[in-house]
């Protein structure tokens, strides 16, 4: 830092050459990071913005199935349930959320081997099942909580309450952004999709600096992002920004404070974001074939809405956005409301059927589109809810929450497609083989991104925190 007072003109030159004329890469990446670390006295934190080793993937798309997909009806079919349909549960039943536990209930969906790998999956997601050879199914995932909000927090931050950084924030903190015009962590919504139970804290930067928090982009919203819509013409805004810059430069010269300089540069990025975000959501340039692949033409409005999220997710990945999370829409069946659309405590056949129809083609389309564009190998797709559902019924035709064993899948670069890891018992109640935790999942996700989960730390309140707390092992068996 230059200790001598700068002239106003010199400051002006340093800050910017004029709006829209020059890109300042620093805002989302190294400058802001280093500064944040310095301002926190955070000597123990690693220099972020650099992977620890060669990454396998650059971006993550998190297809979050809020409410909890039934694993025994999808990726972990259980013939035993069909055989013992209607019989009492032969093992001790753990306390459930609603305590209306019925007998074992067979899946309404047929299971069959898929692809060359022959992984068993039901007919619930026929199109995703068509991509079976690209998926690494983990059938032994577990959670520690039975309720939505805490489960959502646990699955996003590794801790079952608010205040901790979301995985997307950690990833951006660890790697920095590749696109200074867009936030590095984006949550997409469309139609009536809302934030899952637990609220915006699920996408929070927690104690990390605020630039790592998610921005919620409504892909069909007008505007797609709060305050992104200029209220004046571009000419007027440039005029305004020029005026602001002119006067700011005097103040910056007087204070010579790096945070003031950064705040001035901030306007440059904000200005460009106003164009970048709407451009991102404008899919008029996509071909009909692409749109059809995702299901944007679907007569089911929920499918079409989710398809747009998937398509925009691809566009985000193309633009170097690190972490994208998609939001399901509620079909209003069986207690599955806006924040927890998959929550079929009743009518699982109807509810899961509609929900699966909503996401099946769009996600399968996303996989195919990424592959055809050569993006699949640099992208990781995660498909998971906050827990699975009980193999026994709740009431007559629903299933309660089951955190003791459930399924998720990964797909993309570095992932062993067509594989199965871990297993639940014959009933699909408890994970019994290679029991897996959220920490293992994120250790693996970070590993694929080139980050050592034990070294990605941030000192806060007298402790070095990690996304994986003090746990987590990289699931080597699901890696290719």
């Amino acid at each position, binding site marked *: 830092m230059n200790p001598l007072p700068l002239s106003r003109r010199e400051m002006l030159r340093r800050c910017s050459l004029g709006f829209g004329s020059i890109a300042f890469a620093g805002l989302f990446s190294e400058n802001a990071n280093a500064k944040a670390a310095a301002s926190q006295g955070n000597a123990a934190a690693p220099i972020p913005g650099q992977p620890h080793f060669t990454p396998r993937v650059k971006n993550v798309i998190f297809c979050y199935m809020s409410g909890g997909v039934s694993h025994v009806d999808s990726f972990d079919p259980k013939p035993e349930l069909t055989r013992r349909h209607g019989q009492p549960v032969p093992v001790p039943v753990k306390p459930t959320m609603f305590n209306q536990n019925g007998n074992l209930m067979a899946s309404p969906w047929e299971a069959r081997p898929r692809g060359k790998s022959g992984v068993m999956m039901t007919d619930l997601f026929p199109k995703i099942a068509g991509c079976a050879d690209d998926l690494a199914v983990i059938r032994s995932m577990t959670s520690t*909580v039975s309720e939505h909000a805490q489960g959502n927090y646990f699955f996003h931050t590794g801790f079952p*309450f608010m205040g901790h950084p979301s995985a997307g924030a950690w990833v951006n903190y660890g790697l920095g952004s590749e696109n200074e015009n867009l936030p590095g962590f984006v949550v997409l919504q469309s139609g009536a999709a809302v934030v899952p139970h637990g609220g915006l804290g699920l996408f929070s930067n927690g104690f990390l600096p605020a630039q790592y928090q998610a921005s919620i982009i409504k892909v069909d919203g007008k505007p797609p992002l709060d305050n992104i819509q200029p209220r004046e013409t571009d000419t007027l805004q440039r005029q305004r920004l020029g005026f602001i810059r002119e006067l700011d430069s005097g103040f910056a010269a007087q204070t010579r404070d790096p945070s003031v300089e950064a705040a001035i540069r901030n306007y440059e990025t904000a200005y460009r974001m106003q164009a970048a975000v709407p451009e991102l959501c404008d899919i008029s340039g996509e071909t009909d074939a692409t749109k059809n692949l995702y299901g944007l033409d679907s007569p089911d409005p929920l499918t079409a809405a989710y398809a747009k999220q998937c398509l925009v997710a691809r566009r985000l990945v193309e633009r170097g956005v690190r972490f994208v999370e998609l939001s399901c829409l509620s079909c209003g069946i069986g207690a599955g409301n806006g924040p927890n659309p998959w929550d079929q405590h009743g009518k699982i056949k109807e509810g899961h059927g509609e929900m699966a129809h909503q996401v099946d083609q769009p996600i399968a389309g996303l996989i195919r589109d990424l592959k055809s564009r050569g993006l699949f190998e640099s992208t990781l797709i995660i498909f998971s809810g906050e827990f699975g559902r009980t193999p026994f019924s709740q009431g007559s035709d629903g299933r309660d929450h089951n955190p003791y064993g459930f399924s998720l899948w990964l797909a993309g670069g570095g992932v062993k497609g067509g594989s199965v890891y871990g297993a639940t018992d014959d009933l699909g109640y408890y994970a019994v083989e290679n029991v897996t935790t959220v920490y293992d999942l994120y250790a693996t996700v970070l590993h694929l991104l080139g980050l050592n989960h034990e070294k990605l730390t941030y000192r806060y*309140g007298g402790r070095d925190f990690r996304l994986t707390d003090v746990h987590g092992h990289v699931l080597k068996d699901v890696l290719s």
Partner: protein
Amino acid sequence: MTPRPSPIFSAPAASIALALGIATSASAAPTSEQTEFFERKIRPVLVSECYECHSGKKAKGGLKLDWRGAVEKGGDTGPAIVPGDAAKSLLIQTIRHEDADLKMPKNGAKLDDDVIADFVAWVNMGAPDPRDQPPSEQLAGASTWDATLALRKEWWSFQPRKDPAIPTPADTTWSDHPVDRFLLAKMESRGLHPAPDADPRTIIRRLSFALTGLPPKPDEIEAFVRESIRNPKSAEPLGGGALRLAQGLEPVETAGGGQERGEPIRNSTDRLLASPQFGECWARHWMDLMRYAESHGSEGDPEIREAWRYRDYLIRAFNTDVPWDRLIREHLAGDLLPDPRWNAADGFNESILGTASLRLNEHGFQPVDSLDEQVKTVDNQIDVVSKAFQGLTISCARCHDHKFDAIGQRDFYALFGVFASSRPAQVMIDSPAKLEETRSKLTALKSQIREALADAWAAAAQNAPARLRGETPDDRESEKLRARIAETERQLNEIEGAARHRLLQARNGSSGPSGPLQAGAASMPTPIARWSFKNDARDSVGSLHGELLGGAVVKGGRLVLNGADACFQTPPLPITLREKTLEAWAAPENLEQRGGGVLTVETLNGAVFDSIVFAEKDARQWMVGSNNFRRTQSLNGPVETDTAGDFVHLAAVFRADNSIALFRNGAAYGKPYTPGGDDSTLRDFTAGGSRILMGRRHTGGERAFFAGQIKEARLYDRALAAEEIATSFSAGPEGVSTDDLERAIDPGQRAQRASLQHSLQEMRAKLLASPAHTDPWKKALAQAQKEDGNPLRAWVHLRGMTGAEFADQWAAMGKDWRKAQEAVRAENRAECPTHWNLASDDAGQWFREGALKPESPARPGEFSIEPSGSRILTGLYPGGVYSHLLSQKFGGLLTSPRFKIETNNISVRALGGKGAMVRLIVDNYPLGVNPIFPKATLEQDRPGWIKLDTAYRKGSWAYLEFGTFDDLTRPVTAKGQSGPEDGRSYFGVSQITFQNRPQPPREEDKCAALFFDAPAPRNAEDLAANYGSLLTEAIAAWRKDSLSEPQRAFLDFFVRNGLLPSDLTALPALQPLVSEYRRIESAMPPLRHAPGVIEARGHDAPLLPRGDYKKPGELIPRGYLQALNPEPFHTLLSGRLELANAIADPRNPLTARVMVNRIWYHLFGRGLVPTVDNFGRLGDRPTNPELLDYLADRFVKDGWSCKEMIRFLVTSRAYRMSSQGSAKAGEVDPGNELLSHFRVRRLEAESIRDSLLSISGELSAQMYGPPEPIGDKGRRSIYLAVRRNNLSPFLAIFDAPKPFSTLGRRDATNVPAQSLALLNDPFVIGLAGKWANDVLAATPGASVESRVSRMFESAFGRPPRPDELVDVRQYLDARAKDGAPQDRVWQDLAQSLFNLKEFLYLR
């Protein structure tokens, strides 16, 4: 100077090493000097820093360091040390952090340089090590922590405060102020000089924001500048008088004494500290530490009831400068202090409000694992308290001894017991003394009323035998009447039924009178009740004739409802309704109304209902309403637009498979759905226990009335098919109209029908007026014939008997009764043992809070005066605890001792109403509303058994809580509904049983003992006389409050059934007394409440090895940190008071340091300890430890006054320094740790928003009160709602904290969302417009310069410089040239000024 870990380390290591000489081999027996060196310098560090991973069974990296042999052997990467060559020793390299991948201690702060030097010396002397044996297992474990603790206690922040002398810097002219002297001495030691004073405008802006969070007003700036110019002293250090002041002495009044008073900064400081805005600004700092929020987060984000009172408490506390130690005591134990502070203006307990801080937790949603939830909750409480007050992270020690600080795992569980022993509650904050006044007046009046009642009853009891014997002559008459009515109805129905049938048949075959039906349409369904409002509210199918209540009228063939109090109500249903369809043609009068019910079936108390409801959840939409929305979902059907006054057809179908569907105008409205969760299945609306309403959602519901008209309503006892509904819709409301019916009736029968209708009407009226219908004795005797255990049963059974028959029957009845009595008692004893009898001394084990008087339980026969109506009382209660014996406004909590749930069920014999509840509080979880948390709303006026199903929670620790509405942490009400607003709610409880069987205990027939234990009557005459004398005795006993329980039950029967007068119409003489009683009772305002905690018998918590609560270990006595307070707390209560005293103790080394450091941070932008929440090893060290101690000591000596400390600090010259540092400062001290110039800082989120409002003239001066919605555009930001799941986006963008734990130092991040908000947010743009308009209006015809000056002064506290004026002019001209109108041009300028960094930053 770097603080050293221990005084014994004070000698320089190198000199000792020299004195000892250098050995060549570690294995040679060490000399005694070497041994001493090892024991003093090396072993303690090995023990505290290394043993955790490198001793006993632990050998990370294959390395052990717990004896010489292991050290020599080394680990996986080779020998740890090369004796004699420190530089080559791996151990030294790792502790020096030479290798980035191998830094020791692991994850810890680097060891002190002195300690490293000791190790270097030790290795260089050959690493002499007296430990020639591996330690025994036991020894290693036992001694390690104590040794570690002893060493860690040497950390600087655990040392007693010193009272350092004020240094004398070389430059004694800069300032005499002690703060300046401490700072300058440090600066000089590094060759630095303080920056020159800032200009007065900068200073006043800095000061104003720091003290009030608001910009200075232009006149305040001008006054300050004037004073500064007039008083040349202002630019110089404070004089000797100021130093005297600074030292706590009175200034000496001299001829020049005016200089002190004239100090502009002192004057402004006094003004700002005295302004109410000071508290609003500093309370918010404290709220950051207490993770302040008004909701608990998680699913549903339930509110923390009245949390805002705590926010207001903080504002008042800072404004009145409550001593800091006092505030700490109030936060932890405000409810337990012997001398609470009373709010003089409003008469409530201020101190108790501090404990709300313990309740601002996040909470999980209906946790399945409630113990896990409790561990999380207490962990957070400990985290907040330890960080906020002590700058320590004690919650780190939940799973293991702290890695770096003097905090053991036992310490965590010693505190755990304290917090887990404190129960979550809403606590009453009103003054008990004030209640006492009302209480004593009511008590006096009540005893007079009791006397008067006893007189009246005694008189009435005289007539009891006669009333028993008395035949009422018209008895037979009424019976005949009833029979005739039944017969007439039958005839009428026969005629009408046949006609209706014919009509419908005909219509189904062809086209009906309301237009052609579609081909293939289903047949018209047949309702079980139908109301057409032709002339009245009669049911034209069955007998569910309605009553018009409130302002309801039938007019022009319609039921007209006013939306305020009008409704239609039927008598109880004759049949039980399960599957059903509700159908109506209704026209809302306006489309903005919310929540009105069109057609409802409800239980008689309104607690359970299904209804067609307009716009309750979603504006202008229909929905199927139900109690607490249990069977309701938003349907997202079409909204009603421009249809006010038009009739729409609605049909709600409730099917056997639990699904529900709504139809509008014959078409599905939204999707059919099956509700999930609690009480979501199809309900039984029982015969006799349910009724139909129209125009009101349900009885007791708020916002329940429908404004509009109903033309036709029908009820079906089955779920209609969609086609049937379509058919019915197209058949129109007339369907089968009264006229149609009349036309369809065989002409020969028309006259007969009219006559039948006429006589029916007459007979009904006659019956209603007959004494048989109104006389309570008649009713009671009739009832007694049907009821066992009715006190009149013996009479009705025996009254007709004589002689031997009488004697035999009497004896037989007595025998039966005894047998039954014994059987009931034996069964109850065996299957439902009483756990607590609250009529007995057991009540003393329970804990009472709020306005519940801590006195012995009520005796049998206690009663409460009804707050309104003609009845004085409803009945006499059994012995027990009652909240409402004087008033339903005296609510509170009654909680049981803690117990482990070991039975499948708990039954309570209780009564209550108006939102009162009994709840089983499991593991202190305060928010249970779903079925896995046992609880019941008390909705009965007489004592009865209520069962709680506890099987799910077996094995958990819990307590029972009875609470009135305002005292519950989470009452159960329908969404969008509040509870009783007059503060009335009540409960009473007499007995609790723990049992496995589902049925509650059987009630005993208690009063029979009065008869059968007394001499047998010889005949009916005798028996009647017995009733009289028993009654007389009971009344006499009641007068003296010495009733036995059988007498109570007996007397209660007569009172409840009106056989003894308890109604003002019968007792006009009591009117004055009762009126006076009610006047006093209703004049009393509702009691006020706030979140808090309550005491019970404290319990110690078990240590949880590795934090695993499923494996509890030994119990740890409640207490504080061993390092500070080794004695456990000696108390039967939680220990919060002891904890408060330990923390607020002036000898506590941390408390005052932590707080003065926080104050320093807020004023200077960086703490003397920069990590303001962490004074432990992972925190930063103080940059000026002597100054920190000086300030802490001064703070304590000044009576822990925050205002004094602030005044002291801002009157230093350091506070007036310019923010421009010298070139040398940039080189020598780039982080400005020595504060040689002021720090530039961005404003906090609240200040940004408040400044926008203030400058644009929109800021409201209103203080205090319930939170404003986050979209508010006028109140200060501190008053905006803080809902965890819905935080203000504007404030969040500017780093307002997320409320989850202590946050003493906010981020000031830089994200585009900030620029975007200031550029594009309509809120900002609107305020810019407001500001511009104000400026234009206030300066008509003024020059651009003067207007711009005015705006610069408001926004930045200074006039524009000439070059800035040029820029502004250019901007304005360019905008004007574009053709923008003048106000728009100025608005643009205003908004641009909002975007300037000078607006957002302080320098």
